[in-house]
């Protein structure tokens, strides 16, 4: 079970959270003015990155807030969590897990 750090409440077990898809996909200001193809992109196409992936989570059984996270999809480790509206933080391309989430590194 993952340990996820809610930017409002701190580290909590995965059971309290719900996944909410890829982050930083803004709804167009005026959807009616968007052509068919870009609208299809907006609706359906996701990056599904291998490695660090910016995604949305909601602390459903906690504060109820949506927030963003960078998770390495190859290790499941969270590299950062941050509030909605904040820019995506820089994280190393394939970081080993941070001190708070694991990874004793090579020995």
């Amino acid at each position, binding site marked *: *079970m*993952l*340990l996820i750090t809610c930017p409002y409440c701190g580290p909590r077990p995965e059971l309290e959270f719900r996944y909410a898809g890829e982050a930083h996909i803004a709804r167009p200001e005026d959807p*009616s003015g968007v052509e068919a193809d870009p609208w299809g992109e907006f*609706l359906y196409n996701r990056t599904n990155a291998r490695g660090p992936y910016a995604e949305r989570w909601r602390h459903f059984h906690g504060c109820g807030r949506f927030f963003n996270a960078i998770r390495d999809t190859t290790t499941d480790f969270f590299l950062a969590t941050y509030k909605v509206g904040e820019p995506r933080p820089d994280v190393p391309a394939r970081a080993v897990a941070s001190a708070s989430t694991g990874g004793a590194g090579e020995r």
Partner: protein
Amino acid sequence: MSAEFRLPVGGRIDRAKPVRFTFDGKSYEGFAGDTLASALIANGVHLVGRSFKYHRPRGILTAGSEEPNALVGVGRDEAHYTPNLRATQVEITDGMVAESQNRWPSLAFDVGAVNDGLGRFLPAGFYYKTFMWPAGAWAKFYEPVIRRAAGLGRAPQAADTDRYTQRYAHCEVLVVGAGPAGLAAALAASETGVRVILCDEQAEFGGSLLHERDTVIDGRDAEAWVAEAVATLCSRENVRLLTRTTAFGYYPHNLVGLAERVTDHLAAPGSDLPRERLWQVRAREVVIAAGSIERPLVFPENDRPGVMMAEAARIYANRFGAKPGNRAVVFTASDSAYRAALDLKAAGVEIAAIADLRPDPTGAVVERARADGIRVLPGTSVQGTSGRLRIRSASLGAVVGGATETVPCDLLLMSGGFTPTLSLFSQSRGKMAWDEALEAYVPSVSVERERSVGACRGIYGLAEVLADGHAAGVAAAGKGASDGAARRFTVDAEELGHSGHRGITPHRRDASRVKAFVDFQNDVTAKDVKLATQEGFRSIEHVKRYTTTGMATDQGRTSNINALAIVSDALGKSVPEVGLTTFRPPYTPTTFALFAGQARGELFDPVRTTPIHDWAAEHGAVFEDVGIWKRARYFPEGGEDMHEAVARECRAVRESVGIFDGSTLGKIEVVGRDAAEFMNRMYTNAWAKLEPGRLRYGVMLREDGFVMDDGVVGRMAPDRFHVTTTTGGAPRVLNHMEDYLQTEWPDLEVWLTSTTEQWAVIAVQGPKARQVLEPLVEGIDLSREAMPHMSVRTGHICGVPTRLFRVSFTGELGFEVNVPANYGRAVWDAIFAAGQPHGITPYGTETMHVLRAEKGYIIVGQETDGTNTPDDVGLGWAVGKAKRDFVGKRSLARPQMQRPDRKQMVGLLTSDPATVLEEGAQIVADPNAPLPMKALGHVTSSYASSVVGRSIAIGMVAGGRGRIGETLHVPMPGGAIAVDVVEPVFFDKEGERIHG
């Protein structure tokens, strides 16, 4: 009288506490502190099971949880029966009833052993190759027969009556394994004051130190050192000690699952104790001190009862005072077996010979054995063994050729060296590396914050193991890592070399005719593994699955390195090139009940009930599950079946008045300066002009334009909406609203509150509804003029504040009385009493469904399936075309969403009014068209309507509105049913009754 093979002195058993138990119906005596295996050995019993596939007699191979052979069923009755327990782990208790498995009619005479003679016809992949014909026979015939003949224990026949509990725990350092490395780590870590949990699967801490005879640590003998270490740990308040506790699973972010066996070792456990306790431990750092496992040697007939791991025999003699035999042959490739031979000789076992694979064994322990008069045969291997239910002799011959010698024995001890136990490390997704010097896989790159210490990372000398554990404990605690990290332990112990052997041992027999077992539990031989490579399997993962080696409940802890070496030889590749298979949880088999914990029976799933639930139960309601809600489905009277009850309830609503519990409807209070703007964006409808006091039916779409939910919404004030949702949709709708509010439009000043549990909803529906409610209501004018259809008023009913909706999901004059949930039952009782003169009739969800279908009102989730636009289900009128934007609007404009051949909602009438269509049935144009025929759509709702006087149905049909008047067909097993396509309204088409 003590058992025949019990040594007169020694061991950690309590000779003052005899324990009687039965095995296969025969009574035996052991002592407190015995395992079932040690007690049986003390009674001279080695034959304890039959093998999985060939039903060969099998004995006790090991002394630990890695045991592949000695699997037993234990339990005094069916409710306490557990199959497949390892006799090497089961602690005996007075009155224990244990039995062997996979044999019929008896362990000594087993009919299934015929498979052994048929062995050449049962090669690897046998099932895949043989039982291919006829099609269908696999599931019906072959598999059941094979499953019965090949297998493990049987499932218990009665429900488990024991209690199982679960706990969460947090610590800075979790130490798994309490041998020398684990104890040293726990001592060092806990000394810094951090929280430490130390667990071990055995009944007592100490690991290998519990069976050392002449080892001295820091001036104390090993057992005394252990006692002192445990006493020190006990005295520290920051330490939790868990014996009989298996770390079975390593999960992400240092969550480790521990299975604590609380009462199995007690003859009469207190009723306040659970049988097992699941610990979910979140540790900042994990120290794995899992030790190592001795490797069997793969030689012909290496599986007879009496063939045992050398170290296991030493454990039985030294720790349990049980002599595993009278005359032993030792077959080894490592020094440690010499130590075992010496200890067993001291215990009175005659050592007939030590056959050593190595051409020139040297070293202190070898010389000690020679000096003790033991016959050492260098460069010698076991060519085979004899004996049916117990080994009788071993045939020894030089590796390089020459004569063989048959040596009588009742015990054969083997040692191929030791394999570090990597299971938990592998589960943590750490990378393993092949160590050339050690000739073993060891932990290499960690993923989690864990460290392996001692033998499980290939460190074997006791002084080094203790120092390694200590250093890891200090480092894991994270305090003062530099000073005190290195500590020296003064140890006086036997110095051993660490050579070993992997794979098949050399012999001069015909390899195609002998059985040399690699995986004892799954009956996989060296021949099977080689055959797999001959048949083209190259990947160790494929060989594993094809031969099933390493796939038994022991996960190949005694077998996988040998299998790997055989594959490596056969393919001419090095061991690291072949790779290693992955270990997965659980480390040892774990009971289902442990995971279930308290979540059984009534506690399996939460149940939601409404304030009117008890009334409904008292009035004989039949309930249905809607999500986790219990809803009254119908109220049968005087032996009515569902159809009769529903027909009566429907007539009552149409003719007089019915009362219905709508409390499960989802409710969300939408409040704030921008509430109307928010509603405008979330629903298809226009809300700006809806006046306070009015209701509107709202349709909610997902961004892709498909109907997500619907419900009636009341505007209570300019800045306040009372939103209702479908019963199952409430959390989803609130999440959807929160998502947009928090992430897309944080500038809107709106607050969302779930009020589902706050309001009880009592629907009063029918021509007499107003007459029933009028006398109970204060401050609200219910008249047609003052309170028209789709309006909402606040006031009081029976003295209780209410939001009174005039709304109808039946097509009749209707009201929905919202009152605070705590008053729900009282108001319901009052309305029911007031309705008596009018014959007020309680109705359930089934009647509600029929009534709304008669009117063609949809149910989201029944007519819709997540691919329907509002227009598809006849709700185009609810879409605010003039609105600039709402969630889903842009998607509705996509060309695919406007195609005329989209499935559209229509009514369906069968030619025979008595025929009720099946919901979900397909609809076609021509039932005689060749297969596969194209389905035009499907039936979504279908009922017998007592009011209409015939069956009615709703369906989704391609271009359905253009087909009204056509006849289509519903193919069914008994023949196609013709249906006329009609408007989906079957009653009061003009809609006048609702305004009554």
